[in-house]
């Protein structure tokens, strides 16, 4: 892939295997990891957008601000419901997209800053089936 000319590269991307090829590690190196620091109600959050997520954001024309806005709404809704955000995975459903996050760690001494890895899930929830198999 790295040895391809730009034209060959384009051909690969638009081929029927293009959607599979873009998941390969050698393609992902073209997408950087981004770290966004935000503060919501005096709590610091670090959102880590990994190269795979960056790729999907570019592909679906999702800008960083949309991710930030969705995350802020998630934090606010949890606060309203009195739910403490803890280490672990969350799936955040919105009308236009599903954001999956993993609260990795509490990264400051007093436990108020969290590092969150962001993944992008389904494009919309219209056909999402949520099945809980646990009792």
């Amino acid at each position, binding site marked *: 892939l790295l040895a391809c000319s730009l034209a060959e590269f384009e051909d690969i991307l638009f081929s029927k295997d293009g*959607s599979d090829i873009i998941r*390969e590690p050698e393609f992902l190196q073209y997408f950087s990891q981004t770290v966004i620091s935000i503060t919501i109600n005096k709590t610091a959050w670090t959102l880590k957008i*990994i190269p795979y997520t960056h790729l999907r954001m570019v592909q679906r024309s999702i800008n960083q601000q949309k991710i930030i806005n969705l995350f802020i709404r*998630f934090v606010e*809704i949890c606060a309203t419901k009195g739910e403490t955000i803890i280490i672990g*995975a969350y*799936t955040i459903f*919105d009308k236009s997209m599903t954001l*999956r996050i993993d609260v990795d760690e509490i990264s400051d001494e007093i436990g108020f800053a969290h590092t969150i890895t962001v993944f992008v899930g389904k494009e919309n929830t219209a056909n999402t089936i949520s099945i809980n198999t646990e009792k």
Partner: protein
Amino acid sequence: MQVITETIFNQTQQLAPSEKREILSRLLASQLTNEFGTVWKSVRFSDKLRVMAHLPTQEIFVEDLRKLLQTGALIHLENQSEGTCEVFGIDRTFYVTISEKREFVGLLNSWLPENSPVEINVEK
């Protein structure tokens, strides 16, 4: 089909494990014959399978995931065009992107069954 599937699935929660398997195995077969709206699927990869972790914290689970996928596993598709799905192992669930044709799996995240993702709806 999807609505019926969900109803049946919810009802199986009342059943014994063996009864659950009886229903789910038939349900899975019926889903696989339906090209559209296939949500559950079984996969099995050869020795050529390549697995990589997208996060350093997930690297310790790569071998377990590889073994699971080479033995055969049940997956729940999230986004067919992007290949994202959940792979259900005996004691761990993996959130991955799968390219069946290229036998490549990228591990995005994983969790223990008792710590499955908390689902929050933020729709306005």
